[in-house]
């Protein structure tokens, strides 16, 4: 019995018990459903063992949408607690757990997989490739992310949730001040998904460098692919660093090392330092793909070539480099001298320059354009002014001396929600709607889509704008309640009402997916938006081999120029296509990773060692298997039949 006591929740409440029952019932329903409809084999063959970048991308997006829901529920709970002064819906411990979960889930398990989903689906299609460079590594990346996410999500029902914030600062996160296993969960789940992220970075850089279609030069890549290139360049720099920081933190908690302790030569602020050397580029890892998505959508629906292609690329590269040298602006108040703060302050403000260039380029693209107000375009247009508010308040925060006033207030919370929600969430929703027909072969309903857009766009401001004011008035972030005398009550109530509207907007979005899946027409052709890049030149949904013959590219708007000037993109004859085999090893290996991480969290060292050996056994197995695993071939006749079926029906 003593063995099982460690899995008990240290600070239970009715809500947690209800969630346990809910999780148990949902899992049971899934198992029964899969068995009843005899879908186990289908699930295993078509999805779990797949190495197809499009399917992996869809799984990423599905996971991201589920995590979006979870993060949203957390957010609504936070706003419910803060709606009125001295509220008692959540106690301080639960409030800590909920805001920690909200931050980690939204950044690591919602925004990151959403990014990888779109990257997986679109990048190979935009460069005219049949797959990514390492399809099996891609599957491992996905399953590592998935296992990390699941590990994080079981924390609040098994052993206790992390409660030290998404930044998990030491000494608060140390064994002494956070004695439950919650922070162990944080360390291990981020370690797993971070490992997957690093592999994705390597995989897509190799893909973009070496697998471009004949004639496609780097300076002709569509802007989305350029954004992916610089994003992955950032990933390979900072994720190894984060892995080290997480390992230090985990070792401090599990093995008694002295990295971030207060005595014995340890230095608690080193965690903050390492965290933000990773954390600041991380926010650019999220925002740069968004810039790419907006560039694609704005150019498509303004019906003009993107204004200033070269300056767009140059500014993205500049942002990449600058984002590596600004991290200390997250802790101006740590106690370092004026010189250090000045250097980081100036570097931070400098980022506003390339970002400004991008904003003006988008505006210049819109100028004289024949703008079509489709839903993806609406999200993109709403982004520009809203993000601008986030950017300008960012410059305010960048001034080191002024930051001593704003630091850790709701002003900061408002600032980063103003950058991340329009900058990242709007972009990913816009991208999802834009590329949805390419993934599934039907469009999402425009009318319902516009309802959800207006709900989110309006109530986003209702929710977060009041926080600028309460923040300047001195409301601290991460405080679970406030007294009536502070006068924060009315504005907080407005913010909470806004949160309901915001949640409603996302529910309408989910309803749109449901409605469109059932009722939208399937006969939409390969290019429903009249778009510009290569992914629109092949059937929707895309066949497994992507391109029957590789496209020959002459410009950065390859498909648009082919349409308007009548080039032949596909002059080659159909040949046999070589494809990689599916494999269950990535999934099995990642399940073993999950078991290993779980046993480390609960200090079960023998099982952890056994899991490590299991992981190496999977790698060794693959090493030998690769000598005679040559994949399979799709024959010419089969390709021609598929193309005839997919294109014929649509023409």
């Amino acid at each position: 019995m003593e063995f099982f006591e460690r899995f008990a929740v240290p600070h239970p409440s009715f809500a947690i018990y209800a969630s346990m029952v809910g999780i148990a019932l949902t899992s049971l329903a899934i198992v029964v459903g899969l068995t009843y409809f005899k879908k186990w084999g289908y699930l295993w063959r078509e999805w779990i063992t797949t190495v197809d970048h499009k399917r992996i991308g869809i799984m990423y997006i599905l996971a991201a949408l589920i995590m979006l829901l979870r993060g949203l529920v957390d957010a609504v709970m936070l706003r419910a607690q803060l709606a009125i002064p001295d509220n008692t819906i959540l106690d301080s411990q639960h409030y800590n757990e909920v805001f920690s979960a909200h931050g980690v889930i939204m950044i690591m398990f919602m925004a990151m997989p959403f990014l990888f989903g779109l990257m997986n689906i679109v990048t190979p299609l935009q460069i005219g490739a049949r797959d990514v460079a390492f399809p099996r590594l891609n599957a491992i990346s996905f399953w590592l992310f998935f296992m990390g996410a699941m590990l994080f999500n079981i924390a609040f029902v098994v052993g206790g949730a992390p409660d030290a914030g998404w930044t998990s600062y030491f000494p608060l996160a140390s064994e002494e001040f956070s004695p439950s296993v919650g922070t162990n969960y944080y360390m291990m789940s981020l370690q797993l998904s971070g490992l997957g992220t690093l592999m994705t970075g390597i995989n897509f850089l190799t893909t973009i460098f070496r697998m471009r279609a004949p004639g496609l030069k780097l300076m002709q890549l569509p802007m989305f692919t350029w954004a992916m290139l610089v994003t992955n360049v950032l990933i390979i720099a900072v994720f190894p660093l984060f892995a080290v920081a997480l390992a230090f933190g985990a070792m401090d908690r599990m093995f008694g090392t002295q990295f971030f302790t207060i005595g014995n030569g340890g230095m608690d602020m080193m965690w903050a330092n390492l965290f933000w050397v990773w954390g600041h580029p991380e926010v650019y890892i999220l925002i740069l793909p968004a810039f790419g998505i907006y560039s694609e959508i704005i150019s498509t629906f303004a019906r003009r070539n993107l204004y200033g292609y070269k300056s767009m690329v140059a500014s993205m590269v500049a942002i990449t480099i600058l984002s590596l040298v600004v991290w200390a602006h997250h802790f101006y108040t740590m106690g370092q001298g004026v010189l250090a703060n000045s250097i980081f302050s100036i570097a931070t403000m400098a980022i506003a320059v390339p970002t400004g260039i991008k904003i003006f380029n988008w505006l210049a693209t819109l100028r004289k354009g024949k703008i079509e107000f489709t839903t993806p375009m609406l999200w993109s247009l709403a982004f520009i002014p809203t993000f601008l508010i986030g950017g300008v308040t960012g410059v305010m925060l960048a001034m080191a001396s002024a930051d001593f006033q704003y630091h850790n207030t709701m002003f900061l919370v408002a600032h980063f929600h103003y950058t991340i929600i329009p900058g990242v969430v709007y972009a990913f929703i816009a991208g999802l709607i834009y590329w949805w027909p390419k993934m599934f072969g039907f469009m999402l309903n425009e009318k319902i889509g516009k309802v959800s857009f207006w709900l989110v766009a309006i109530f986003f401001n209702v929710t977060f704008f009041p926080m600028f004011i309460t923040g300047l008035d001195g409301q601290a972030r991460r405080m679970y309640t406030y007294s009536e005398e502070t006068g924060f009550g009315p504005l907080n109530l407005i913010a909470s009402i806004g949160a309901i509207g915001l949640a409603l907007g996302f529910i309408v979005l989910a309803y749109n997916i449901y409605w469109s899946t059932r009722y939208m027409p399937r006969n939409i052709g390969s290019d429903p938006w009249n778009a510009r890049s290569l992914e629109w030149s092949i059937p929707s949904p895309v066949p497994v081999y992507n391109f029957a013959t590789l496209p020959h590219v002459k410009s950065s708007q390859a498909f648009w120029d082919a349409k308007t000037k009548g080039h032949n993109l596909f002059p080659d004859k159909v040949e046999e296509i070589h494809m990689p085999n599916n494999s269950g090893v990535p999934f099995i290996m990642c399940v073993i990773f999950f078991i290993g991480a779980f046993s480390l969290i609960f200090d079960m060292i023998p099982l952890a060692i056994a899991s490590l050996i299991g992981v190496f056994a999977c790698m060794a197995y693959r090493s030998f298997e690769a000598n005679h695993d040559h994949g399979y071939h799709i024959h010419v006749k089969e390709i021609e039949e598929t193309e005839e079926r997919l294109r014929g029906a649509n023409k």
Partner: protein
Amino acid sequence: MAQLFPKHHVMGFIFSLVLTVVAMAVVVYDLSYTAAMAILLITAFMQAGVQLVMFMHAGESEDKVTIYTNVIYMVFFAIVTILGTLLLFIWDM
């Protein structure tokens, strides 16, 4: 047999041994901190260069521009991380 020991490999090996001995000077002689660090930096980066160019064939394939850019970028990031951390924790604390 001579084929198995190509000249530039042997030269590279001898060169790396010489550089190691030179680096040892900082322990053997009583040098100023600046001089010692200069010797260590120069010998270490030259060693890395020997490995990269002579042994790892970094420049032999069609991807050599990508490979060198990749390595230089990451060395830049490494220097930024190290100097930035030292600035925050030692030089300006």
